[in-house]
């Protein structure tokens, strides 16, 4: 017993087991709990929005909102079938323009001439474009398409949205292609692939999940945008006609949420819920599709 005591005095051994009220441990506990709290706080806005949407929008959600046309000020009932179709159509046009465009440009930026002047300029422009206020995309499409063709149209809306999607698709696709291991590319060339074969058969399939994530991010952003559509697609109370003003969920929410009529406000809530669910569904689909392609 006595021997042990002297040993302790000699070496001043700290206690090795964790002591909860020791300053070090205390600091660790406090700091970790702050990070946990911050992580939880970050979720609060999302969940409170979701709960509010489910509560207010869920009340009005029924089968008929999906196939009926928007009501006028005095009507009860009605729906926003045309706005769903319009949003899908315009986002579809935007994707048709921006996905091939963005991916081809990304191939050039990542593989063919990553350090060329063109690539450096394009990359710089794309990065600036990601921060482009969406309303400017609308103003651009208004001047370039609406005024020239003398009509508001779904095409103009799609073009405005594609402006917002291209930089997102381009930059994420470039990153995804760069992430493909060098060894894989070299192996492909080594077994006799031409550069084109290496690109199509090896590099793109491997990069696909990353590319798809970028496309989905871009689509989700485009689907929720109101500002570019206000000037280009306007709104419509009828079913889609691509060369005429076209309804979209985002503009419907914008228009109806400011109205003093109960029916329209309820529809705006329901439309918000539908829009969120659509983006959510798209996310899940693309994730499962993207996940399958892994080699």
């Amino acid at each position: 017993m006595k021997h042990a005591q002297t040993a302790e005095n000699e070496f001043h051994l700290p206690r090795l087991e964790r002591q909860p009220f020791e300053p070090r441990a205390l600091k660790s506990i406090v700091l970790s709990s702050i990070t946990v709290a911050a992580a939880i706080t970050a979720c609060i806005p999302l969940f409170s929005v979701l709960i509010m949407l489910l509560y207010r929008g869920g009340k009005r959600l029924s089968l008929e909102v999906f196939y009926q046309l928007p009501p006028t000020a005095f009507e009860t009932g009605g729906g926003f079938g045309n706005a769903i179709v319009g949003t899908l159509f315009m986002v579809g046009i935007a994707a048709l323009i921006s996905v091939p465009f963005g991916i081809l440009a990304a191939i050039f930026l990542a593989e063919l001439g990553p350090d060329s002047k063109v690539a450096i300029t394009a990359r710089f422009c794309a990065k600036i474009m990601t921060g482009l206020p969406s309303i400017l995309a609308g103003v651009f499409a208004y001047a370039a398409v609406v005024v020239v063709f003398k009509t508001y149209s779904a095409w103009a809306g799609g073009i405005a949205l594609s402006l917002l999607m291209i930089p997102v698709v381009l930059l994420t696709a470039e990153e995804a292609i760069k992430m493909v291991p060098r060894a894989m590319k070299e192996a492909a060339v080594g077994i006799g692939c031409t550069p084109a074969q290496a690109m199509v058969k090896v590099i793109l399939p491997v990069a696909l999940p990353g590319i798809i994530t970028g496309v989905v991010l871009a689509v989700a952003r485009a689907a929720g945008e109101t500002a570019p559509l206000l000037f280009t697609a306007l709104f419509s109370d009828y079913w889609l006609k691509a060369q005429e003003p076209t309804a979209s969920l985002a503009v419907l929410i914008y228009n109806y949420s400011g109205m003093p009529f109960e029916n329209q406000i309820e529809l705006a809530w329901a439309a918000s819920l539908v829009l969120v669910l659509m983006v959510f569904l798209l996310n899940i689909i693309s994730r499962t599709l993207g996940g399958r392609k892994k080699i």
Partner: protein
Amino acid sequence: MKLAKTVRSLVLCSMCSFFAVSAMAATTVVGSGASFPAPIYTTWFKQFSRANKGVQINYQAKGSGAGIRDFIDHTVDFAASDAAMTEKQIAKVPEGVQLLPMTAGEIVLAYNLKGVKDLQLSREAYTGIFLGKIKKWNDPVLVKANPGVTMPDEEITVVSRADSSGTSYVFTQHLAAISPEFAKNPGYGKTVNWPSAIKMVKAPKNDGVTATIKQTPGAIGYIEYGYAKMTKQPMAKLENKAGKFVAPGLEGGQAALANAKLPENMIAWITDPAGDQSYPIATYTWMMFYKKYSDPAKAEILRNMVAYCLDHGQKIADKIGYIPLPANVVEKVRAASANIQ
């Protein structure tokens, strides 16, 4: 892989069907502009589209100013404005412009004040509020005009239009007509520089102003009668030129309209109607058409639409909160609509 293929073919199929639908669909006529008559216009157009298979009229309320801009840019087939169009604006349209008054309405002062049911506003009171001189609901001027009502000690919040608006134009034109001080500063127009003394909130379109009044205790704002009626917002009785307090409604509106004579260009303003019964702020509201359309079918649809609004449309005007056009005006408009070719 298989799944991806099915998805791809599904997407392709749906795309094809979209194009098919757009190819088959009916002729669409597009209009934009004033929010003041939007509830009645959209109701008319929906009924007209239902009655005429193969015709769709799509009207988007963006405010009179935006409608005029669209019309000058030729991005729409027709437009609507409560401020009509100026000579200068008309000169920018090479085909020529036919303005037609389609309905009329009253601008009411809707308010949100707990416990006050029948607010009466003398001319001094409501010009004072919009000049920023009267800032509290218990101001002596307001108390004097409302004997027997306890006015709360609350600040007045004025709700005005954020966008370029025909409703603002008509309202400020009236204020300028009855108050020399208002005529000098701020004057009248589709947008005005309101005196900075006013505690003011701005909102877009009649919809936005109505919604803001509804949500803001102590608020007062100017909107079309129908908006206040539909949303059950209380409206003030206003003192007219004859010194009588008149509530907005069909009778006061018709009496006010009787003061106007429509000249050749169909633009007439009723800035301060005479007569005991007249509600003081009433106005026609116009649709603008090109005199020459490249597609004669479109011109015919528009002429039919005008005829429909004159015949069937006027009958439902009162119910929705608008003033039916007097019979002599209906005939004048019918005759002028022949200019749309």
